[in-house]
C-alpha cells in the first residue's frame, strides 16, 4: 500500500499539469482553479494540524488577512501581484504570532479553542474597520495580474499560477519535513515531553510551524483576491475554516497527499451539489464524523492518527508497517 502512495504525488502532478489540455470547458477550468486553491489551503492547514500536534479550527483568519492585505495594498499602492504573494503570506505569518504567543506555551486545547474565537474576531475586525476594508461592502475591482507585459485573466492562466504555487508549497514542505526542523515538529507531535528532554524548544518550533502554515494560507488569500477580483468578509467566515478542516481530516492529516485529496474530493462534491449549497457544510460535518468513526487517519493517512494505537504493538504485520509507512527516511 505504501508504495502506491509514494508514487501517487508524481502521478497527480503530471495529471494536474496536463489538465488545461484536455479540459476545455471554462466552467470546469474554473472549478479546477478552485480545487487547486483549496489544495493549497488544506495543505497549509495540514502543516499545522498534522505535524506539530496543534489543532487549528480558525484557518480562515489567515486566509482572510492574506486576501485583504493583497487587496488593500494593490488598490492603494498598486503593488504587483507577484510581490503581494509573499507579502500577504508574511502578513498572515506575523498575525499568527499574535495568536500563537499567548497560547502555544500552554496545552494544545487552549490553542484550538482560541483559534475559534480568533477566526471570528478577525472577521469582525475586517467587517467593522470600514475605513480600511470597506466593511461589508468588500473590496471590488482588484486588477488582473500581469506577467512580462501579459495580462493574466483567463482561467488557464490562473490555473497555472495556482498550480505552480501549490507545487512550490508542497515541495518546500517536503523539504522541511525531511530535515531537522521537520523532525523536531514530528517529535513535538509524538511526545512533547520527550521532545523537550531532547533539547527541542517546543514553543519556538510551534510558532515556526504555525507561521509556516499561516504564510501559505495568506498566499492563497492573495491569489483568491486577484482571481475573484472582489473580496468581502463573507468569504472568510468560520464555515470557510471548517470546510478546509474537513478537507484535511477527510483526506488524511499528517501526509502531503491527504489534504490535496480531501480538497479535490470535497471541492468537486460541492460543485456537483451546488443546488443544495446550504447542505454543504452539514455533509462536511457528517463526513468528518464518518471519517473519525471508520477511518480516523483519513483516506490517505498513514496509521499515525489511527485511534487504536496499540494495534501496532500487537499486529503481526508490525515490521512491515515500517516499510509501508509514509515516512520520510533519508536513504543512507
Amino acid at each position: 500500500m505504501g508504495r502506491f502512495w509514494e508514487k501517487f504525488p508524481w502521478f497527480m502532478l503530471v495529471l494536474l499539469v496536463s489538465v488545461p489540455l484536455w479540459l476545455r470547458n471554462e466552467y470546469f477550468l474554473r472549478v479546477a482553479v478552485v480545487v487547486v486553491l483549496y489544495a493549497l489551503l488544506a495543505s497549509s492547514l495540514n502543516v499545522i494540524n498534522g505535524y506539530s500536534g496543534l489543532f487549528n479550527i480558525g484557518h480562515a483568519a489567515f486566509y482572510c488577512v492574506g486576501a485583504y492585505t493583497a487587496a488593500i495594498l494593490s488598490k492603494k499602492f498598486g503593488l504587483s501581484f507577484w510581490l503581494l504573494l509573499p507579502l500577504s503570506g508574511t502578513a498572515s505569518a506575523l498575525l499568527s504570532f499574535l495568536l500563537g504567543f499567548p497560547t502555544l506555551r500552554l496545552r494544545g486545547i487552549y490553542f484550538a479553542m482560541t483559534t475559534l474565537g480568533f477566526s471570528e474576531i478577525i472577521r469582525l475586525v475586517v467587517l467593522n474597520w470600514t475605513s480600511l476594508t470597506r466593511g461589508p461592502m468588500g473590496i471590488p475591482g482588484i486588477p488582473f495580474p500581469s506577467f512580462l507585459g501579459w495580462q493574466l485573466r483567463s482561467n488557464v492562466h490562473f490555473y497555472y499560477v495556482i498550480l505552480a504555487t501549490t507545487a512550490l508549497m508542497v515541495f518546500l514542505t517536503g523539504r522541511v519535513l525531511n530535515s531537522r526542523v521537520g523532525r523536531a515538529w514530528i517529535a513535538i507531535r509524538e511526545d512533547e515531553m520527550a521532545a523537550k528532554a531532547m533539547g527541542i524548544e517546543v514553543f519556538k518550533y510551534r510558532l515556526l510551524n504555525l507561521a509556516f502554515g499561516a504564510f501559505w494560507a495568506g498566499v492563497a488569500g492573495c491569489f483568491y483576491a486577484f482571481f475573484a477580483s472582489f473580496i468581502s468578509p463573507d468569504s472568510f467566515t468560520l464555515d470557510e475554516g471548517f470546510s478546509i478542516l474537513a478537507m484535511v481530516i477527510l483526506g488524511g492529516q499528517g501526509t502531503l497527499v491527504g489534504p490535496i485529496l480531501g480538497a479535490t474530493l470535497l471541492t468537486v462534491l460541492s460543485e456537483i451539489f451546488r443546488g443544495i449549497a446550504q447542505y454543504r457544510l452539514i455533509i462536511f460535518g457528517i463526513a468528518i464524523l464518518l471519517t473519525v468513526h471508520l477511518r480516523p487517519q483519513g483516506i490517505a493517512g498513514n496509521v499515525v492518527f489511527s485511534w487504536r494505537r496499540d494495534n501496532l504493538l500487537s499486529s503481526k504485520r508490525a515490521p512491515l508497517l515500517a516499510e509501508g509507512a509514509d515516512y520520510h527516511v533519508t536513504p543512507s
Partner: protein
Amino acid sequence: MLPLLETRSLCRYFGGLKALEKVDIQVFDGEIFGIIGPNGAGKTTLFNVITGFLEATSGSVLFKGKQITNLAPERIARLGIARTFQNIRLFKHMTVLENVRVGFHIHTKTSILDAFLRSRTFWDDETKTMQRSLDILRRVGLVEQMFYTASSLPYGMQRKLEIARALASDPVLLLLDEPAAGMNPKETADLVEFIRKLNKEGLTIMIIEHDMKVIMNVCHRIAVLNYGVKICEGTPTDVQCNQEVIEAYLGRGRVSFGKSQEGPLEFLPL
C-alpha cells in the same frame, strides 16, 4: 572536589503532599549513582525536578557548580543532561533511526531556510546526524531494526532505543529511570554491562531502579529515598546494612534483605 550534579535542600510539594523534602544529593563526575526507594518515594519526582519538568518548591539544583533550578527542560538538555522516562516515551510512529536522529537535535543547526535551500549546513548536519545515529545504533545493537517503527519493537528493545536516543545528545550526565523494568535476566545482564561500558567511556550516570541486582552491581554510590526524604546515602554495602533502609524497603521479591543481620555478605556482586 566539585560535584557534577548537586541538589541542596531540594523540596517539591504538591499542595500538602511533600514529594521531596530537603533532599541533598551529590553526584561526582564519572560515577554511577543509584536512587532507590519504595514506590512513591519521590525518585521520579527528583528526576523531574532536576531536568526541569517540575518546578522546585524550594532548594536548588546545581550542575557543574552553576544553578539550573527551574530552568526549562530544553535548556537543561542543552547543558548536557539527558534522560529516559519511567514509562517509555518514544516517538512511537517514527522509525528507530528517526528516533535517534532527533536526539541529535541540539548538535545540529539547520534552520528552516537551510532546509528549503538544501544548503551546505543542511547536508553537513544530515551526514553528521546519520553517521552518529548509525554509530549509536551499532553500540546499542539496534542496527537491524533501523527502519522499524518504534512502537513495533519488543519492550526490551524499546527501552534500549530510549537510551540510544538519550545518548545521541552526547550528554555529560545520563539519567535512567527504571531502565531494567520489564526486562528478562539476560537483558538485564546486558544492560548492566552496557551501563558499565558507558561509564568507562566517561559518562556519569544516575539510575533509578527497583531491580537490586542492577543497582547493587553497577552503582558506585546509592541514595535511598523514602516518603520524599533521603534516609541513607553511601556505597551499596553501606546501604544494605542500614537499618532504616531495611525497614522501609523490603525489596521487590527478587532479592530480600532477609530477617537476619547478615546482610552484606549475601549481596556481593555476582
